[in-house]
């Protein structure tokens, strides 16, 4: 058996934080390597290194025995590595056939011109679609086919490159059971043809069924790479967890009260979330855990009125919500700390004070002309910043951009504090900030709860939810798939629910 790909001691850091640290893996021709790990374990970065999307800081890669240093995605696929991304890269305004051949149309001469050879495109597209079992007209535009069909088109595209190595990053998330089965049959055929594949999935049973060997990653490092026979689901999960939690979290100072602040009753939106029920009480921190793409962020956006829901109801503080808009939510004292500070939460170029005052701005308006009372606004902003122990210079002068990630996050929270929210929806509030700043954010969350706010704490870091929450809800594939009280907290059990390892065939 020949070694096709050899990754040696590869390291990649983003802004000083290592996403992949000295990882070595090997892959034989005609084999499937399963790659597993929690969100943020470094799987995607490792694949981006192999796929030429990012370049390593150190370490080497050998492909087909020769040194392999792709400078961009095109370099990787010319070398013979096809990468099927989790996010689809199809052009919705073009036909299936055009998507498959967009970078290299077969052409025929027409005078001095090289015209697209439509007959050849049609013919070859039909053959490629047949390989993945899609019975669609090559002329259908992508926006007319279902998500699962799109995924299969993407796979067909990767196959037509005849690449000896194919990377599948979570290919089954939008596939139906039947389509998934078809994909697996196809992967087995490809393996028999001698092609190698790397298969990333959160569905551990699929990995067990497909892979020849399995690599487990945790915190940017390789835990182990061993033959498939050495694994079962239980061992896989325990290898993925294994981190201790000591003194990373402040003690909780108050217990939840009995009054319900937020009640979500049967919220659904087709293809996104299904029949969501949850409650948040006064003074309670409720964790919402789920893997990437489980629908956490989408649910949060719906609860705040940013995306529409199709059925179900929402009751805030005993009042049923009738109009779902962010403006209405703010009026009902709901705050939403977004997942993406840079793009959604903060205006980076304006001052800290102006950022902090943004949500509550109408409250500072004076006289019939609604002129903003600058001095009062700044006083309030200063007050909020001092409560949160914001580390900055003059908040009136300094732009939000100049702050560290942790302090930026505090500005986002301060912004909402001025509006006196009763309910906080926090989506990944500690993403990308260092351990010390995380502790401060946790303390703020505890104080908010102690002061009687209800908090819906969304995170893909299970440890922080276990450290901070009174209750944890697990989301999977757009549904609530488990609920755990504080005395039942157990990382492995919760993770197993997120992976749907109990009584579910998917």
């Amino acid at each position, binding site marked *: 058996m020949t070694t096709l790909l050899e990754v040696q001691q590869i390291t990649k850091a983003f802004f000083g934080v290592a996403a992949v640290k000295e990882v070595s893996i090997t892959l034989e021709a005609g084999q499937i390597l399963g790659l597993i790990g929690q969100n943020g374990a470094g799987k995607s970065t490792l694949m981006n290194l192999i796929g030429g999307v990012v370049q390593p800081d150190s370490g080497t890669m050998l492909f087909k025995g020769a040194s392999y240093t792709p400078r961009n995605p095109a370099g990787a696929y010319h070398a013979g590595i096809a990468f099927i991304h989790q996010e689809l890269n199809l052009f*919705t305004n*073009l036909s299936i056939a055009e998507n498959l051949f967009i970078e290299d149309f077969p052409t025929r001469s027409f005078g001095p011109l090289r015209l697209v050879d439509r007959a050849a495109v049609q013919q070859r597209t039909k053959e490629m679609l047949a390989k993945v079992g899609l019975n669609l007209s090559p002329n259908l535009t992508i926006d007319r086919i*279902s998500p699962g069909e799109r995924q299969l088109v993407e796979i067909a595209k990767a196959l037509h490159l005849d690449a000896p190595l194919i990377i599948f990053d979570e290919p089954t998330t939008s596939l139906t059971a039947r389509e998934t089965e078809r994909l697996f049959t196809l992967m087995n055929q490809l393996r028999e043809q001698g092609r190698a594949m790397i298969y990333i999935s959160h569905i551990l049973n699929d990995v067990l069924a497909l892979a020849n060997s399995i690599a487990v990653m945790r915190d940017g490092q390789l835990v182990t790479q061993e033959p498939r026979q050495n694994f079962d689901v239980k061992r896989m999960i325990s290898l993925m967890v294994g981190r201790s939690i000591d003194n990373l979290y402040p003690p909780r100072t108050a217990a939840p009260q009995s009054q319900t602040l937020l009640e979500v009753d049967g919220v659904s939106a087709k*293809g996104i979330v299904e029949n969501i029920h949850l409650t948040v009480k006064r003074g309670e921190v409720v964790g919402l855990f789920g893997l990437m793409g*489980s629908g956490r962020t989408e649910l949060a956006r719906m609860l705040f009125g940013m995306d529409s829901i199709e059925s179900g109801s929402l009751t805030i503080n005993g009042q049923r919500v009738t109009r779902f808009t962010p403006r209405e939510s703010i009026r009902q004292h709901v705050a939403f700390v977004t997942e993406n500070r840079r793009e959604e939460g903060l205006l980076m170029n304006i001052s800290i004070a102006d950022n902090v005052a943004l949500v509550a701005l109408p409250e500072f308006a004076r006289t019939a002309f609604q002129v903003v009372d600058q001095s009062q606004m700044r006083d309030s902003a200063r007050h909020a910043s001092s409560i949160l122990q914001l580390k900055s210079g003059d908040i009136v002068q300094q732009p939000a951009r100049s702050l560290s990630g942790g302090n930026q996050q505090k500005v986002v929270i301060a912004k909402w504090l001025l509006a006196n929210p009763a309910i906080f929806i926090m989506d990944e509030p500690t993403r990308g900030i260092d351990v010390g700043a995380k502790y401060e954010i946790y303390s703020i969350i505890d104080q908010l709860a102690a002061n009687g706010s209800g908090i819906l704490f969304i995170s893909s870091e299970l440890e922080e939810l276990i450290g901070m929450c009174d209750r944890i809800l697990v989301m999977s594939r757009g549904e609530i798939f488990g609920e755990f009280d504080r005395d039942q907290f157990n990382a492995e059990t919760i993770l197993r629910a997120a992976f749907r390892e109990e009584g579910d065939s998917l």
Partner: protein
Amino acid sequence: MMASSRRWKPTQFLLNNSTLILFLVVFALFGLSSPRFFTSENTINFIKQASYTGILAVGMTFVLLTAGIDLSVGSNMYLSAVISGMLMRSIGLDVIPALIVALLVGTLYGAINAFFIVYLRIVPFMVTLSTLVIGRGIGTALTESQQIDLPERMASFGQINLLGIPIPIIVFAIIVLVSYLILTRLPIGRQIYAVGNDIEAAKKAGINTDRVIASVYIFSGFCAALAGFILASQVIRIDRSFAEGREFDAIAASVLGGTSLFGGVGNVFGPMLGAILIQMVQTGLQFNQVNLYLQPMVRALIIFITVFFDSLRESNLAKLKRRFIRPVEEAGAMLHDPPEVKGK
């Protein structure tokens, strides 16, 4: 089976064919109010007058398809016409060589836009706004703000009829057909649509996006010069305000023709109709002796209505692009008509 499984949706039909419908409605309305409007003489006349806007709109469509914009086309028309006109006057250049000079100037103008946009990564709006001012400035400096009267041979060129069809319409038709061929049959044509749909995905797919983007601005420059030359052959003189503000007619005609300002959506026949529609409205308003000062407002209203349609179409599209987490078995049926093949 196939026919019955395809639901006919009136709103979808209206949105997708808004230009043609509007065109027919306006044509019928003007015709009813003034029977002379329907004569072939009048029809040919307003199509002729629409030709240069149409050529401009076709070039603009290429740019809009990549989600860019070219504000400099009016100034490009002026500068290329000024340079070729001055050479006709000073060294007695003949019409065809003068046309070639104009096209070279216009293409170079487009290439300069492309250079700033692709290599210096400046947003198209700012680049072409600057070259709009600079281009007209250079032209004014060259002519010292004087009007250029073009020679007789240019006037007779503008009057050429082939089989009863005026030369501007013939040039317009050729440009539309060539552009149609480029957009639908050449690899770069399809890549223009890909870039406009999702530039990041286009890069990942290995498309040379810089080359695609540069070529649309160069083509737009070429079309502008051609349009400028056609206009010059009709009015026979080039003054300081020659073709001023024409970029807005071009954008309006293109958007009127179903081109999305968000990129990736559109074809060349829509803008062709759009340009003729704008001219038809103008002519129709004159026919009906509508107050001269109200005319721009009526034109603006029509443009507003179509841009409104564009945004409706776009929000419809946005709904289709939502990310799905759960497999939806009947997604195809829910979002749109089921694919034909499945019916068999």
